[in-house]
Structures are given as structure tokens and as C-alpha cells.
């Protein structure tokens, strides 16, 4: 503490010292504008090669100074999350806070060191920044993105995962889903750019339901989900999430866990309420039209749900004992518990869809009968015929197809749990079967002895990264870049699978044509070989007549964009016509349903169909 009260009267002479400045150099700077500091916040620069047009800069802008401009001749790529638009800046609004730079998910925006713009032309204050700057003078970058300056939350909320030991002990679900807090935090990471919506095959309103979740309005989230997806429990667990690939946040950090958020929304709303939300908006009057759907897989169920909501009478014919198709019989329970699938199907049933199980076409009911009873027929029977590598020994009975093994596990049938098994294939199915069988091995023998042989190298695996990682944790050995050569059979039982090194997968034209280095050979001891190298459609149930009447293209049924075949009453959707996954099947189901509905609307009601 110090008292600084002046005690003196001052001096008249001391100020005269200031006159010394008459002989000193002035402090004045030259007239030329000085170069600005290295992180100066001058006019905007935008690297058009990096910019994806997400519009986050527009969102964060305090002053509504940023407008997105559609530029038709720019490249666009929905799958990769690129929109043909660029930000334009209004220098009648901008305050140079550089929040746009700090939030830019790609880091394309930065501020330059240029700071002089003087004009009487008002229009010159609205600019479309590019790499060269406002006057094209090529000023250096000033304030730009650094590793630590990001405003976005780049870290995903941790999703717990069962430890490998526990996971192996049964078919319990691997991930428990987010709790409410984690879900809200994760939802808050979303920047609402809508890239996911564009990338999603079925165009889910992800930004909307994420925003609703963040606001704590789960019912609204569910409603948003049901606008485009009646299999949300399923998709919330096993979707291949093209949305997350396109997610802008993922450009520099981890993408928003859109799939888990969808799952959280579905898990946190009671089934009754979901049902109520889902069938809200169902046509009150029956339309009097009847649609038959063959195959209760994702495409069929989706189409059925859509059509039922429009008021049509829908019947699904399912050959297996339970509906769900590949979702039930192809995907292991630890990834998609059956009760969740059942919940989705219950909602679909609640919308008025009739599902007839154990009803195979050609066996229990004929195609002609169905056609006769319906105004339109949709076939969505999937791919159930397994492909084989056809190397020596694949005709052995202990060479199993993955799809049969998975089906048997679901059905609870005993297919003879192998002591040592080799799975051939590098896709998700390979891992599904490997991990399912591993669980059975663990239960029966107390240890896992499972090799997975993949043609692809580690960096180009078809399977999801997390699948590969978790499988390794569960004691499954992965062998990359190996192809099956032959199966060693001794005394009628398999002893080993011999593999050779795969050098290249594709030929010069990019077609699948693996080349092997025959000199390297590795033998995998096994008593069972499971092949997971693809499936094909079995269309024999259609009947010879119909098969001949329909148009085909390269062995696949020829359909138009909406899924309509060359027969005006027949539509096809799902894996059997276009792959590869559940969400695509759902999208195809929607398209087919829309098309059917449109056609039916112009069709006279068959007498006797009115309920």
C-alpha cells in the first residue's frame, strides 16, 4: 500500500525538457500500410478444395454475416459429405471474431493478413472468399486453425463395450448404449450441417432427431426417426452408418455417433409410446387395396409398414419360423438382440401388417394364388444361397456356409461346434460367424480356436474396424492377404486348410481377380471350415413361368428405380436386387412402397377386397 498523493507544486521548467523532441526523429511510421501480425484477423480466405459447404460457419456467425451460396458447377458427393456451396461473407455484418475459422470442420476457412478495403461501391462488401483473398492480392494466411483452437468437440462420448472375457461367455449384447447424459453430450456435438441426411440411403432426418435428443425431447426424436425408418431398433444397432462417414465433425475428429444416438432414442422411449408415435398419421379409412409381400426382411417389412400406414391391407409371407430375415438369422444375437428386433416388428404389426410365418411360396402357397389375391406383389427374399470358394475339399460335409451356421445358431440347432475352425472371408459376415462360433467353442470347450483368413490386407478389410478389433480381443486370429488353396482331409475328416499368399486382389481393369504367390503356403489346422465369401439369390420359388416372363440383367432381376419389375404387378426390393445392407434394403422398401402406393391410387378397387 502506498500513498501517492502529490505533495509538490510542480515545476515550470521541467516540462521544457519536452522541447528536446524538436531535434529527435519523429515516431511516425511510413505511409505504406504495415504488414499485419502473423495471426492477424483480416479478410477471409477459403480453400475451396477443402471446403465441403457444410455451412457451420453460417451457424456460428454472430451476425448472420455468412450466407451459403449454391454454385452449380462445383463437385458434389453426398456419400463423402460434400455439398456444392460455399460461404459468402457480408462485410457489412462481419465482426472479425473468427469463430467461423475456429469452428470450420475442415479447416478450409482462415483469415488473411489483408485488412484494407475502402470503397464507395456497396456491393464490394459482399464477397465470396477463395484462396486468393478479397482483392486477389495473395496475402498470407493470418488467423487460421491450429490443433488446439478447434471449437468443435472432436471427442466422441465413450461407448462402453463388454470386456472380451465376458463377451465370449454368451450372446449378451456387446454394447450397452448411451445413458441419458452421454447421449445429450454426444448429441451436442452435432453441428446440424445435414451431411448425414444426404448420405443416408433412406435419408434419415438425423440432424433433427439429434437436436431433439439434445433438447431432451426423446419422443420428438423417435417421431423424426419413424418418418424414414421403421426398423430403428435394428438400425440403431447394426446400421453400416454411411451418415457417420459423411459427418462433417468427422473431418478432423471423431464423427458424431449418430447410430448410437438413434439407438438411445429408441431404447429410452417405452414400446407403447413408440407404437403410438409410429402409427400416428395412419390413414383412417382402409383403401381397399391388398398388397402381398414375400419375405419378412428389412425391405419387405419397411414396404409393409409404409403401405399399411397408407391404409392398404398388407400380408407378408415368410418361409421361416419368425420374421426378420437376415436381421434375425444372419446377424448374431450379441449384435442385435432378438427382443429388439421383435420390438420393431411389433410396431410394424401394430400398423396393421399381417405376417404369415412358415409360409413358403411354392410349398404352402403358390405364386399364382398370391397374385390372384393381391393388387400388387413385392418380393424381397434376400440372398440365402451361399457361395463357395470351390477349392479342393469344399464338398466335404464339414465345410459349412456361414449363413447356414448363423441360421442354425439362431434356431438353436446343433451343427456340431467345431474344436478348431477356420473362417474364410474378410467381411462382416465372416466375423459374425467367427465370433458366434467362438462363443460356442468357449461354452463347450472352454477355449477359442478360430482363424479368419481374409484375402484383403489389414488396411482394406471389408469388415468394420471395430469388428476386427473386438474379434482379436476375443481370441480370434486374423490372417490377412491369404487365400484358400485346398482343404486337407485325413480319414474323412478335415485336418487343415492350406492357404497361399494373395499378392493382388484386382486386375488392371479393376475387376475382382486375386493373384496368389503359390510359393508361400501356410496350413491352418482345423476340423471345420466355414466359408463366408458371399451369397446369392434363390429365385426358384417364382416358378419357371414367371422367371421366364421377367427381365433379367446379369443374373439379377431387372427393376426400375422404384423397384418395379418388368411385370406391372410385381415389385422387388432388398438384397436380392440391390445390396448390400439393412439400411439400403429399408430405402428400397420405401421406394417400392411409394411406387406401389402411387400405382394403386390409380387402380380401380377390386370388388370384394373392401374389408
Amino acid at each position, binding site marked *: 500500500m502506498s500513498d501517492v498523493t502529490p505533495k509538490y507544486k510542480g515545476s515550470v521548467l521541467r516540462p521544457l525538457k519536452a522541447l528536446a523532441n524538436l531535434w529527435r526523429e519523429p515516431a511516425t511510421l511510413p505511409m505504406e500500410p504495415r504488414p499485419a501480425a502473423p495471426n492477424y484477423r483480416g479478410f477471409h480466405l477459403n480453400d475451396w478444395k477443402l471446403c465441403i459447404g457444410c455451412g457451420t460457419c453460417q451457424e456460428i456467425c454472430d451476425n448472420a454475416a455468412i450466407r451459403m451460396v449454391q454454385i*452449380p458447377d462445383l463437385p458434389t458427393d453426398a456419400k463423402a459429405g460434400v455439398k456444392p456451396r460455399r460461404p459468402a461473407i457480408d462485410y457489412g455484418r462481419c465482426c472479425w471474431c473468427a469463430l467461423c475459422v475456429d469452428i470450420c470442420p475442415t479447416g478450409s476457412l482462415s483469415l488473411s493478413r489483408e485488412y484494407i478495403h475502402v470503397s464507395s461501391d456497396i456491393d464490394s462488401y459482399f464477397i465470396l472468399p477463395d484462396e486468393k483473398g478479397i482483392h486477389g492480392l495473395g496475402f498470407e494466411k493470418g488467423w487460421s486453425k491450429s490443433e488446439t483452437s478447434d471449437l468443435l468437440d472432436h471427442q466422441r462420448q465413450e461407448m462402453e463395450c463388454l470386456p472380451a472375457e465376458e463377451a465370449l461367455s454368451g450372446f449378451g449384447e456387446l454394447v450397452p448404449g448411451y445413458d441419458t447424459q452421454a447421449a445429450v453430450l454426444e448429441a451436442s456435438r452435432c453441428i446440424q450441417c445435414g451431411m448425414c441426411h444426404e448420405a443416408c440411403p433412406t435419408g434419415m432426418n438425423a440432424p433433427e432427431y439429434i437436436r431433439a435428443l439434445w433438447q431432451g425431447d426423446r419422443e420428438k426424436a423417435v417421431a423424426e426417426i419413424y418418418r424414414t425408418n421403421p426398423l430403428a431398433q435394428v438400425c440403431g444397432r447394426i446400421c453400416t452408418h454411411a451418415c457417420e462417414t459423411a459427418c462433417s465433425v468427422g473431418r478432423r475428429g471423431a464423427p458424431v455417433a449418430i447410430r448410437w444416438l438413434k439407438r438411445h432414442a429408441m431404447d429410452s422411449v417405452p414400446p407403447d409410446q413408440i407404437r403410438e408415435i409410429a402409427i400416428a398419421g395412419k390413414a383412417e379409412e382402409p383403401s381397399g387395396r391388398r398388397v402381398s409381400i414375400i419375405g419378412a426382411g428389412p425391405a419387405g417389412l419397411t414396404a409393409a409398414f409404409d403401405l399399411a400406414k397408407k391404409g392398404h391391407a398388407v400380408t407378408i409371407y415368410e418361409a421361416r419360423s419368425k420374421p426378420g430375415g437376415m436381421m434375425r438369422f444372419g446377424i448374431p444375437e450379441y449384435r442385435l438382440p432378438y427382443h429388439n428386433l421383435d420390438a420393431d416388428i411389433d410396431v410394424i404389426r401394430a400398423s396393421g401388417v399381417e405376417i404369415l410365418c412358415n409360409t413358403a411360396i411354392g410349398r404352402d402357397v403358390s405364386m399364382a394364388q398370391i397374385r390372384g389375391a393381391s393388387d400388387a406383389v413385392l418380393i424381397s427374399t434376400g440372398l440365402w444361397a451361399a457361395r463357395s470358394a470351390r477349392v479342393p475339399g469344399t464338398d466335404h460335409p464339414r465345410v459349412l456356409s456361414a449363413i447356414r451356421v448363423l441360421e442354425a445358431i439362431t434356431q438353436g440347432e446343433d451343427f456340431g461346434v467345431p474344436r478348431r475352425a477356420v473362417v474364410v472371408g474378410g467381411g462382416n459376415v465372416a466375423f459374425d460367424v467367427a465370433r458366434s462360433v467362438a462363443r460356442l467353442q468357449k461354452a463347450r470347450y472352454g477355449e477359442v480356436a478360430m482363424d479368419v483368413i481374409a484375402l484383403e490386407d489389414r488396411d482394406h478389410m471389408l469388415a468394420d474396424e471395430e469388428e476386427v478389433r473386438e474379434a482379436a480381443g476375443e481370441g480370434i486370429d486374423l490372417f490377412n492377404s491369404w487365400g484358400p488353396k485346398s482343404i486337407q482331409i485325413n480319414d474323412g475328416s478335415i485336418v487343415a486348410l492350406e492357404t497361399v499368399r494373395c499378392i493382388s486382389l484386382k486386375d488392371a481393369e479393376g475387376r475382382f481377380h486375386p493373384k496368389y504367390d503359390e510359393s508361400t503356403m501356410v496350413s491352418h489346422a482345423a476340423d471345420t471350415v466355414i466359408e463366408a465369401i458371399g451369397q446369392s439369390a434363390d429365385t426358384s420359388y417364382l416358378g419357371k413361368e414367371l422367371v421366364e416372363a421377367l427381365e433379367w440383367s446379369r443374373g439379377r432381376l431387372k427393376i426400375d428405380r422404384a423397384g418395379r419389375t418388368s411385370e406391372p404387378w410385381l415389385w422387388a426390393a432388398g438384397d436380392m436386387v440391390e445390396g448390400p445392407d439393412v439400411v439400403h434394403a429399408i430405402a428400397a422398401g420405401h421406394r417400392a412402397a411409394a411406387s406401389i402406393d402411387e400405382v394403386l391410387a390409380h387402380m380401380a378397387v377390386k370388388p370384394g377386397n373392401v374389408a
Partner: protein
Amino acid sequence: MTSQRASVPAQLDHILHEMSEVRVTPKGERRVRVDLAADRLPTLLQLLKGHGGFLHLSSISCVDWPETDEFELVYHVWSYESKMLISAHTLIAKSPGRFVSVYDIHAPAGFYERDIHEMYGVHFEGSPNLNKFILTSWHGPPPMLKSFDTRAYVDETYAWRDYNPQWLKDIAAKGGGIEE
């Protein structure tokens, strides 16, 4: 800096004992929140000033709560002796929106009451000067009310600039343009 004190400081406790129906919440090392009924507030300020050395009225804040149709008035008083800030919260009904002035206890209240009167329309009985101050050219409702939508007012009153630079004309010619 953020350590939470377990209880109200003894000295303060002593003062607040004389008041009934006062809820005291320590909010930090030097912050105490006090909730009380509106009619008790002048007494509290008087007591705090007299016995606690809370001489400095740091400010009066007003918060509009449209759901309950109430204004929350917060009186922040600081003591140079115990180095503590007490925020006394009280709620008053939006209509008629009248309250007593504490100008006679704390002179700085003159400014804040005038400001709140201007921005929220609360009338302080006995305040020395409630004439318009900042908003002499303003003829609308008290602007800080939540019911006053500044964005809507601006949209209605002012026009936004319609830029049409050459680059935008070029893009428009190709079929693009500003997104709404």
C-alpha cells in the same frame, strides 16, 4: 477460488438470525445468495449495511421470468470489511410491477432503479429520478422484457441490404444463388 464453504460465516449468521424466512445459500468463497420475500428486502439491506458493513451496493439486477409472470430483483451488496458479496434475490409480480426504492439506504440504487425502470418498466416508489435516460428516443415497450422481440422489431423497422455483386450475378446466371 471455487472452494465451497460449508456454512454461512458466523458474522453473517448473526445478522441473518434477526430475519425470519430468509434462505441463505453459500455459492462460493465470497458469494452468498439470500432469498427472501420482497417486503423484507429493505430491512435486510438496512441490517447488512448497519451491522455487517455491507456499504457498497454493487448493482441491482432485474430478471424477467415470463412463465411465472414475475420479475426477479437481485441486490448485490459488498462488504469492504468481510470482503463478501451477498446477492439478495426477491421476486415481485409483473403487474403492477411496483417496488420500493432503496435509494435512501444505498445511493447507487438511483442509477440502477432508473435503468430497470427504463428497461423493464418496474416502478420504484421513492426513487429520486425515474425519468428516461438512455432511451429518450425510444417509444416502444421496455426493451428488456422477454415479450419484446428485438429481431422482429428490427425486421419490421429496417431493410436489409440486398447485395448484387458481379460474382453473384454470374452464379445466378448458372442457376445458383444465395440459399435462404
